[in-house]
């Protein structure tokens, strides 16, 4: 579990950002 927060953190944050953006976009536009 400790590894989860130390390994590849920048990549994990970028991936989270992309996931949130995609979710907002799809829910806002396509599923309106």
């Amino acid at each position, binding site marked *: 579990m400790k590894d989860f927060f130390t390994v*590849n953190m920048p990549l994990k944050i*970028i*991936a989270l*950002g*992309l*996931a949130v*953006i995609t*979710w907002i*976009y799809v829910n806002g536009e396509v599923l309106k």
Partner: protein
Amino acid sequence: MGMNFLQLWSIMKPICEILILWWVFYRILLFFQGTRAFQVLKGITYLAIMFLVAQLLGLHTLNWLLMQFFAISILAMVILFQQELRQGLARLGRGHFFNLFLEESDLLAGIQEISDAAFKLSDKKTGALIAIERETKLTMYVESGVQIDAIVSSELTQAVFKHESPIHDGGVVLCGQRLAAAACLFPLTDNQNLSKIIGTRHRAALGLTEHTDAVVVLVSEETGEVSVACDGKFIPVTGIERLQHILKDLLIVHSKVKK
């Protein structure tokens, strides 16, 4: 009670969706990390952010332009990164079952012979390039060389790399316990950060490990140094035991799970 569950689900649903999306994006980024496709992926991420901002602010012209650009760039990506995409899909489909098909004792015997050969060649300062197949099939590279298909032995490997041997140029490919081919051509790395003095053999070792998941044992002709290449990186080797330990780790234990 039913209502409570539905309410809970309506809260949990977006979280679940975002978590799944996050995991998928993370695996994609991890897969492309360190390759030239990663730079492109970073560029696309910036464009995606711009697209979202344009959407939120209602900038229709910018939005339209980005939309058109995205449509073209998807097609361009498929063409430009054909190889990476093919490898990615192959990796997804194959899983981590390669060592179930090979007997551990076969692999151990192969490791012993290769390690012995590497250090004997190193003593004579004879260059060698030995690729060991893991999940990704090296058939393409086997076909580029001279087919041998013999049980690997230290003597055979040394004979192949002897200067007088007509098949000493290029690399050998090892599939399980069999030495599949010699004089095989491997792709050269296009890593720009490498020192200019690094030779073609080292570049080929790195290139192959960037394109496939193979493990490469390498003996330098100039210094007689033995090293192992894996995932586009060199692992220095100090002695025969250390080489055997590294190979066992990479081929049998295969505990190198990306976190």
